[in-house]
């Protein structure tokens, strides 16, 4: 518990991840599921960024020629987060366009109704 309080930023990141996961499971609206997935992404980015932070150090941009690891925070998680953000944007765009196509086809965003209409069409065929 004491460790958890000390690692409160990571704990917040995990709780964000959990909120996103819960939204994915409990909402039947596709847009809300998408928002949940984005919240999950945000939690992971916060986790990675907080893992690289070191108390009292500066951002890794070399100033006045100081080149020692003691002066800067860990730059590796930042670059990983950059990769993650770009991939998250791409995935969100693809999923949104799939949602638009589904809406044009079934005129609803509710996943249950989409399944039901698809079942009826399967039976009609």
């Amino acid at each position: 518990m004491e460790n958890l309080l000390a690692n409160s930023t990571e704990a917040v990141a995990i709780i964000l991840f959990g909120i996103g996961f819960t939204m994915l499971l409990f909402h039947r609206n596709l847009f809300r599921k998408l928002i949940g997935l984005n919240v999950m992404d945000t939690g992971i980015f916060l986790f990675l960024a907080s893992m690289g932070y070191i108390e009292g150090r500066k951002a890794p941009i070399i100033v006045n020629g100081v080149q020692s690891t003691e002066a800067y925070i860990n730059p590796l998680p930042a670059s990983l987060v950059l990769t993650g953000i770009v991939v998250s944007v791409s995935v969100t765009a693809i999923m949104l366009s799939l949602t638009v196509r589904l809406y044009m086809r079934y005129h609803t965003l509710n996943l249950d109704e989409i399944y039901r209409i698809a079942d009826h069409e399967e039976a009609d065929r």
Partner: protein
Amino acid sequence: MKIIEVGDVPSLNGEDHDILESVMDGAEVHDSPREKVKIEKEYYKNYVRSSPWAQKLIRTENKGFNVFYLAVAVVSCVLLIGMLLFTISYLPRYGVENPESTAVVRRYVEQGLQETGAVNIISGIILDYRAFDTLGESHVLFTALMCVTVLLRRDRKNMRTQYEDFYTIRDEKYHELYRESIMRLVAAVLLPCLFLYGAYVLLNGQNSPGGGFSGGAVLGSGMMICAAAYGFRSTDKVITKKAANLIAFFALGFYSFAKGYVFFTGANGLENHIPKGTSGAILSGGLILPLDIAVGLVVACTMFGFYSLFRRGSIGGNE
């Protein structure tokens, strides 16, 4: 096999035999047409389903499944969060350096300026040490643009099935009719600053925070604001579909060839002829500046392409 008319309710109290099976048997023996068998099957199915006990069973089943789903979902969410929080409490302390995780970074920080010529260490990492990763990232963006084009492009072959209709997508003329005066005033003030800021962030990636992705995103959002305020006619002069494809193709191709040269010379111990420049100036960092520009162009085209495809179903107007 007698043909069942609507309203002719067959008695279920007689011989006990499977209804669907008897229908299938009839189909085999009498060789009746498929359509008739289908109608009979449908009739029996609806008859069984419309009886009160079956309705009750179906409702109970749905309700039971919903309750089961909710219970499993709650349990799995709580378990996941609990397990992850438990793991978090055993991680190294927040804000304290642990030597295991900074072992790789030592080389980047101590040798980065001499090896890459970039003052910004993160730019040096993503565009020099780990440039292959960034190449894959740009390709992911490009592939996403292609996927969205396949899904949302509005033309004769795409989106003209019996189910999908055009009237759900609003026509471009609809947007042109509105003269959005507030939007135009804001855009007139904002656009020059936005493009200047985007170019600054893009070109100074090796010296300050920023780089290809953030600068490209700022430029792309500038184009989005331009299209939203002045209509797509203003952006179609600059970015057509052909131009977007050419920009993406040449940027990604240049990136691949430049990094291929660096990998080839590095792997074979040859001398690298790309000058590093003085650190801190704009023309420094060797290949980082051109690669930043390439990545930024791809990102700007992709962002604007997403917006344009979602709003009107094509990148560069009616080609």
